[in-house]
């Protein structure tokens, strides 16, 4: 199963690299006028394209069709508020659960002297 994950990640990365080559050499000039003639910043975009290439293709397609996102001035404020609240509530719960689950290690336990095999044999002989 883990091999499958790595295989999928490898294929995903390979496709991402292909998209990066096409997008950064050809597509970017068509989606953003500020990128035309600007080459030095493009290598910085390679990791991003490789990581989120499906999103890149989706936006490229939308922009090439002349579609704009209607709610540009409505940032996901509520989503951010609720995520921040969920984070604030989850952290103490996780902290308490981890501390409760923590097992005492050998450092906290009193040492116990174990009897060796020779002592056990002596006992059985008696």
């Amino acid at each position, binding site marked *: *199963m*883990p*091999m499958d*994950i*790595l295989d999928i990640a490898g294929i995903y990365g390979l496709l991402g690299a292909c998209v990066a080559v096409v997008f950064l050499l050809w597509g*970017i000039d068509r*989606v*953003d006028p*500020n*990128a*035309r*003639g*600007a080459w*030095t*910043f493009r290598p*910085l*975009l390679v*990791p*991003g394209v*490789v*990581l*989120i290439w499906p*999103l*890149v293709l989706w*936006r490229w397609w939308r*922009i090439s069709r002349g579609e*704009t*996102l209607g*709610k*540009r*001035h*409505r*940032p*996901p*404020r*509520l*989503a*951010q*508020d609720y*995520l*921040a*609240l*969920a*984070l*604030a*509530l*989850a*952290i*103490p719960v*996780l*902290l308490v*659960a*981890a501390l409760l*689950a*923590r*097992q005492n*290690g*050998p*450092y*906290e336990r009193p040492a116990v002297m174990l009897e060796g095999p020779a002592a056990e044999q002596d006992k059985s002989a008696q």
Partner: protein
Amino acid sequence: MSVKYIPVQWVPTKYVYDAVLLVCVAVYILVFLRLGTPAADFTRPVDGAILRMRAFGTCAFLMLTLILCIGPLAQLDRRFLPLLYNRRHFGVLTALVALTHAVYVLNWYYAFSPTPPLEALFYSNTSFGQFLGFPFEAFGIFALVVLGILAATSHDFWLAFLSAPVWKRLHLLIYPAYLAVVAHILLGYLQDTKNPTFALIAGAGALGVAGLHLAAWARRPEKQASQEDWVEVPHWREIADGRARIVSLGGDERAAVFRGGQKLSAVSNACAHQNGPLGEGRIIDGCITCPWHGFQYRPGDGCSPPPFTEKIPTYRLKLDGERLFIDRNGYPPGTAVEPLAIPEGALR
């Protein structure tokens, strides 16, 4: 602002910000390595590789904790706003420190078997059905991937290309990533260590993030329950000259009501650049100035001054006796709206 992209837009303050960051990270790593050996768990041998991975791992956690504190701190106290300005460089550096931690882990714990390190990382513990002994590495991998995505999409191009709302949604992944980092530490290092120092620091840091976000949550603008078109602007007389009051219009929409002398204007609270909170900014040289990156807009029409081309929505205002109202139905970005004159003696 409508100029050709360059790799990094350096300004003197960014040099200082980044230099301070780099020095702090270097000092932390060196101090950790110097002091770490005697403080390390003496029941197990801690060698240099383990010490280095711990140094970078704890450093990445503390950096991420600070990053997540900056937002609510800036909301609670304006003096923290300058820390927001270059937070993206802070994030990129954090991702690099976390990656260094991961490389040390891979090249030590998973390096001495015939199984390739990455496979060993996924194979070594698959006890996903239990809390104690849960493969905490999975949380670390998730957080590292998210940090990588956020760092890789931090250039201004991504904001323009993805659009600010999509970019923002992508970067909201920082919240689950931070929770994953906390779980990574609590179910990993905390379960094993006998040295309480970092456990206490980690707990305090994580609880600090939680507390600050709760405090910022409590300070949100009052919600407007009414569905009427006109929404009352509370405490509008207290708006200082050149400053604003943020009004919630319901849902995700917020407006900023600015006072410029004896006139009031209302624009979207979201900057067209990165959706920064314009209402926390001020009017400089006659233009509303975003506190995050200095993008500017004219109060009368929401347009950036030439040669820049950014535009934000504008809103109508009206006075009804002593009360100020804003029309929740904003105009399209860049629409001119006559500022509302404040009657003589109306301001305190």
